[in-house]
């Protein structure tokens, strides 16, 4: 049964997740083409100085990439479920409703994890090629909230899309937007270090929020 649930999710999302991961990898490639260009034309020492002392973020191009992947994945996964109220078919499958939803959620989270890992590892590998460990460390601390924002956006999008009543959707959207802004505060590279763990915990807490929308649907709020 688990294989069947995963099979359905794969059919819905495969092209979105593959295509967007490839685009994200190209975006990382683009970042390092720019880095290489700057290294060549500004001289490495000047460029490093800008990064270390003038708050120049060579990786800022990456800022919304995880968020876009997450929203596309959530849309491709959950919009087909609410179209024509097909989620009724899903709830009628011979499994506990919450179990099916958690399987769907696990699939989405694993897909994001694989996609983000690829993007992150390429980013890390290329960063190490061009920069000293201190700069790379600050970059990692700075991009982690953006990837966490991707996970949080994916979880909140599930809550919003599966909610059947528009006024609730709008309310959830406002709460989600305010919550996600926490991950995108601008500041010095590495400034997120003290709160990355807290953001991770909050993101984990939001992970099962879609169960609430599904519960409301099953009670007749449709």
């Amino acid at each position, binding site marked *: *049964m688990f294989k069947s649930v995963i*099979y359905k999710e794969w059919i819905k999302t495969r092209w979105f997740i593959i295509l967007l991961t490839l685009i994200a990898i190209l975006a990382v490639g683009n970042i390092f083409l720019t880095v290489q260009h700057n290294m060549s034309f500004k001289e490495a020492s000047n460029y490093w100085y800008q990064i270390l002392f003038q708050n120049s973020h060579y990786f800022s191009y990456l800022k919304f990439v995880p968020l876009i992947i997450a929203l596309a994945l959530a849309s491709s996964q959950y919009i087909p479920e609410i179209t024509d109220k097909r989620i*009724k078919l899903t709830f009628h499958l011979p499994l506990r409703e919450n179990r099916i939803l958690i399987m769907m959620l696990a699939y989405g989270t694993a897909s994001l994890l694989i996609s983000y890992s690829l993007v992150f590892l390429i980013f890390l590998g290329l960063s190490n090629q061009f920069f000293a460990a201190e700069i790379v460390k600050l970059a990692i601390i700075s991009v982690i909230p953006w990837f966490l924002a991707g996970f949080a956006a994916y979880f909140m999008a599930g809550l919003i899309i599966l909610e059947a009543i528009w006024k609730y959707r709008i309310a959830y959207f406002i709460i989600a937007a305010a919550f996600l802004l926490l991950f995108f505060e601008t500041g010095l590279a590495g400034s997120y270090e003290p709160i990355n763990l807290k953001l991770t915990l909050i993101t984990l807490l939001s992970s099962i929020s879609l169960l609430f929308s599904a519960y409301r649907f*099953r009670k*007749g709020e449709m």
Partner: protein
Amino acid sequence: MNTVIECNNLTHYYGKKMVYEDLNFSVGEGRILGLLGKNGAGKTTTINILHGFLQPRSGEALIFGENSQRLSPHTKSRIGFLLEGHIQYAFMDIHQIEKFYSGFYPDWDSKPYWELMSKLKVTARQKISSMSCGQRSQVALGLILAQNPDLLILDDFSMGLDPGYRRLFIDYLRNYSKAGNKTIFATSHIIQDMERLIDDVLIMDYNRVLTQTPVDEFMRTFKQFNFETERSGIDLSKEEFVVNVDTIENNIELYSYDTEDNIRKFLDKKGIAFKNFREVKMGLEDAFIGLTGKY
């Protein structure tokens, strides 16, 4: 006979608007029951409660003895479910959807599914979303038959289908039910289709059940009589034996469970002169309108 569906004192409101109060009915094993009612009479509400997608304000709906709000996976596997409009996972093709569902049901029998699919003029990789309504209905029906459920709940199964597909759908369903003693609970807007399919009829009006009875018995006992009166303006609607009456000038169309003899005697006793008294043969649709009224 075992009871497959049992609704006890089912009550539901949307806000302050009552759908029904204390609705009671049951469906026995192997029976095909058609739920008929006008728009807004509560058919979809009942279907949603049976599926567990709506919590009634009070009362309970039991399926195979389990409350429909908390059906176990095993019981869900015994229920085939057809959504209004033959909705399915339209992003799949016929191979993908068969592979998907077969993973859930240990008794999955793909033979009837592929038998139906062979009749469709669709390509192997054609998405369900690009199929006609009739073709989609066959996919949905094939999946239900392959699941081999003990109970089928069909919400407006004939919606959007042309006569050929409707006939095909009904013939398959009836054969399936009678060959395996399977129970069917169905609603449809096209009552002629129901006449070919169902054993029992449950007719709902706003807030109440008008009748639940075998179709044969209903058609035998519920009658339409037409006659002309000499005087116009005769009001028979308050009489006990009258279920429904339509009067246009001197022409009276009367529906009743009473016999022709008794009605004639009543008219004579009341001194109502009449002529051309005749019983009109009804189909199920006529009887439905006779029972519920045209408005």
